[in-house]
């Protein structure tokens, strides 16, 4: 598809409202982490939001880890 328009791309292809709710910031053992809920309703860590560099060495909440949602509900 080739578009010939002055409208910006993000106005034509708008992000659905539901996409915005996917990511949240939760606290895991005192470390703020940005998480995304997967299809099993578990949280997958996307980014560690802390400013303490040692929090990035905690392998229980490094990016990619799945935090089981049962504990946090």
């Amino acid at each position: 598809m080739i578009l010939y328009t002055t409208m910006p791309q993000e106005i034509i292809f708008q992000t659905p409202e539901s996409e915005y709710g996917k990511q949240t910031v939760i606290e895991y053992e005192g470390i703020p982490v940005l998480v995304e809920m997967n299809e099993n309703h578990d949280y997958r860590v996307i980014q560690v939001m802390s400013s303490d560099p040692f929090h990035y060495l905690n392998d229980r909440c490094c990016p990619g880890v799945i935090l089981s949602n049962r504990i946090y509900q």
Partner: protein
Amino acid sequence: MDKLFFQNSNNEGEEQEAPKEDRPPSLMEKIQQLGQTNVPQLSQDSKIHCLTIIGQIEGHLQLPPQNKTTKYEHIIPQLVAIEQNPKIEGLLIILNTVGGDVEAGLAISEMIASLSKPTVSIVLGGGHSIGVPIAVSCDYSFIADTATMTIHPIRLTGLVISVPQTFEYLDKMQDRVVRFVTKHSKISEEKFKDLMFEKGNLTRDIGTNVMGTDAVEYGLIDEIGGVGKALKKLDELIELNNEEMERLVQ
């Protein structure tokens, strides 16, 4: 492949040990976790905290989640906490940003500039547009040799009311950035504006893409360097700060 399998079996062992897990993780979970990064464990409180300014600097409009953003509502409370916590003695700012919201960027810059604790910034990759005031807001700034900073005029997107006042507003907005940068770095207002309105450097745009060495030459950034140099400088500044505090106490 060997490494992948090794990590996988490692995870399995850890999760079976953990008391929180009441059932062994499903195969799906293990596969999904393969992308995780493993880093050595060190339990210790750090006296230096680090803030990463990455991707877009998000302002009053929330960007779709596929964008990497730095949100000011995350950064500002962290800066307040860093200022308040007596255990934290210094702050390292790492920038790799494409710019973003002017007011959010200026808010972060002003917060960093007004911290009483020593701050050092490093620009890695790129510190473009509103990343420039954030980089210069620290007590001392570093830029990687290969990093660049794009300086260009401010622009508006969305609904623009086509009256002369809009132009004036934009000019005032730009002035805030120029004033902040010239106040917190060694670059002169004239030179900064020259770079900002230069023609023929950027394709289809006005402005200049300043390379690491040039940024130092213009006085925008203090020194060429990376993490090692930045941490060394921060330690020096912390020592100076502590000495000064002691003198004040006496």
